[in-house]
């Protein structure tokens, strides 16, 4: 959607499972690896691929990315490495998205420090919510800026009482969570079959509309942060 807004956008796949790369039909070059990725500069530049969609490029990941944590640990400035790697890209892209594995690791810490906004999908269950609270506490403990966090409800099934109750309670107690939520819809899973982004094969669907609403709400908040190029998880 960032690309549809005609803003040059880069999607950086940091997950060794490479789902984002898969969706866009892009494979990493054989010679590409976590080590090369961490070298940055030319290594990153020459591995960026243009997706089939205008204004959207992708930096694919690779199975070797499962070692990113270990490799980061070996390096100096291990928690801010990613930020340094990505800063040269700011002049080419208006938005850089980092697709990260969903856990709190050294890689995640890098992302927390590199990103301007962190989108956190939360399934509206007590367990998921608890995970989010953990994340929030981690931020406090590490003195990271909590205002970067943009949690939103995902895989919402309105039929389930627990989902409805969790959402209601959260919105009552706090306004940190975004109002737009992503419902659980079969359409979304179909990205794996079509191997194309949702707006491409189901542009008019409720699923696409939900993502659109989410994107509009997020970009609404971007307008109020400082004028640096934005990076979101």
């Amino acid at each position, binding site marked *: 959607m960032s690309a549809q807004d005609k803003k040059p956008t880069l999607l950086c796949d940091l997950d060794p499972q490479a789902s984002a790369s898969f969706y*866009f*039909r*892009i*494979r990493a070059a054989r010679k590409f690896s976590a080590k090369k990725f961490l070298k940055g500069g030319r290594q990153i530049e*020459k*591995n*960026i*691929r*243009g*997706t*089939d969609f*205008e204004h959207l*490029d992708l930096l694919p990941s690779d199975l070797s990315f499962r070692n990113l944590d270990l490799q980061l640990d070996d390096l100096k400035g291990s928690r801010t490495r990613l930020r340094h790697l990505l800063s040269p890209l700011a002049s080419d892209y208006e938005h850089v998205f980092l697709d990260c594995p969903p856990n709190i690791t050294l890689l995640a810490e890098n992302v927390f420090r590199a990103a301007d906004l962190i989108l956190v999908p939360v399934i509206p269950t007590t367990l998921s919510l608890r995970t989010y609270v953990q994340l929030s506490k981690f931020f406090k403990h590490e003195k990271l800026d909590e205002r970067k966090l943009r949690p939103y409800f995902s895989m919402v099934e309105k039929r389930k009482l627990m989902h409805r109750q969790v959402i209601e309670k959260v919105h009552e107690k706090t306004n940190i969570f975004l109002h737009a939520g992503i419902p659980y819809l079969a359409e979304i899973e179909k990205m794996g079959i079509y*191997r194309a982004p949702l707006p491409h094969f189901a542009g008019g669907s409720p699923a696409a509309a939900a993502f659109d609403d989410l994107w509009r709400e997020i970009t609404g908040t971007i307008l109020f942060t400082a004028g640096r190029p934005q990076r979101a998880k």
Partner: protein
Amino acid sequence: MLSTRDYSLPQGLSLAQIQKDLSQFYTFAQDGKNSSKTTYFDTFDWRLYRQGTVLARSVADLAILSLETGEALVSAPFRGEAVPLFWWQLAESEVRRFLKKNIDVRALIAVVTTEIEHQALRILNQDEKSVLGLRLGQVTSNAGLPSQNLLRFLRVSVYRGYTAHLPKFDAFMTRAGAEKLPCSLHHLVLQHSTRKPGLYSAKFKLELTHQMSALEAGLAILRHLFNIMRENEAGIRQDIDTEFLHDYRVAIRRARTALGQIKGVLPPEMVERLKREFRHLSRQTNRLRDLDVYLLHREEYRRLLPESMRNGLKSLFDRLRRQRRTEQRKLAAALEADAYQRISGFFQDCLGQENARADLPHDAQRPAKEAAKLFIFKRYKKVVALGKKITRLTPDSTLHELRIECKKLRYLLEFFASLFSGQQIETLIVHLKKLQDNLGEFNDLSVQQKFLKEHLCRLQGRSSMQDEEIVALGALIGILYHKQIGIRKNFAATFRRFDAPENQKLFREHFK
């Protein structure tokens, strides 16, 4: 998507054929057909072309394209009916800023319109990821292109990171008989338009040969100037922009200098008649040009006055605009009248005949370069003698005289530049130009003050004139006077630079 490459296609090669031949290596995705219309614009004197660019209007935007790479340097959305003529008529955008910098007061004129039918295809790898995009274009209808010269081209776009696929495709295209386009498609289209790009220039550029006699050179110069006049007529009649009249008048001025300075070469009767006609034409166009110039000064005048006084200038400019409209119509009519056609006919006739004359003056057969040296050096000496005389106390009229002498010298240098070694003549002209700029500005300010004073006097006492107009005009005259004094102060140093020993040496070397 990043880099693109354009090929011209041999007539027999279709997209279907390319697909068939490549299907052993790749799969394809069809993207359908569409057609697009693009109109290219530039000023009459090709200001964009000289920067290696062109303005292109497509259905939803305006873009400044590089003629070499075909890429858009800047673009802006545009959905108006017609492309406006002037930069200030566009909404604020990078395109507007580019035009403001490069075309100034000139209008944009449509050069050629193309309609291209596109057929698009994507080449996919084994993951069915697009790696190359192909777009076959057929230039179908066109205002300027003769219909048999249809351009068929293929544009290949490489998706970022997939450049490895290009060499194979390139080799295939070469085998199929396709050639890379020698320049961008846009450049190719422009070259096919009826008006050849870059040909017209306001600068005097004429190649004379060393074999020419003074007479032949003189006639060539006058012919060239006469052609420039003819080329600008339509623009004056249609009132496209102010510079058509300006270029027309400069051509006349140059012609009058040629007639006056190239002495003893052209048949005297012809010279007399031509002088008369040119003088008449000059007079007919004076008023309109003056009005154009004052209207162009509007912003500057407003800026010179304090904000509270600016409104006083409004009625002056309203009056000038009305007068301008009238003058333009008068001149347009005069240019269409029979009298003008007869004069044009006369110019064409007498400038056309070559040496078949009985009444040739004695210097007619002298080699052109020899004669040129004489004319130029004589004028140069006059300029230096006059300039040296000028002190703080010299009356303004002497500076005006010097300005005119400088102009004659400059025109002579330009007329005969091709007969002398290019670089050094250029240098002399540059130095002379600096002196001319100083004298020119001085003269302009003098003329402007006179005009405003006359205006003030004529209208004082009339009930229609407001106090605020009197005050504004008075203030403006004072400011211009002050400016003029500053310019006069700079004269001495400027003249000294022109008369520097290096320049003296150059002039003597070439022309003595």
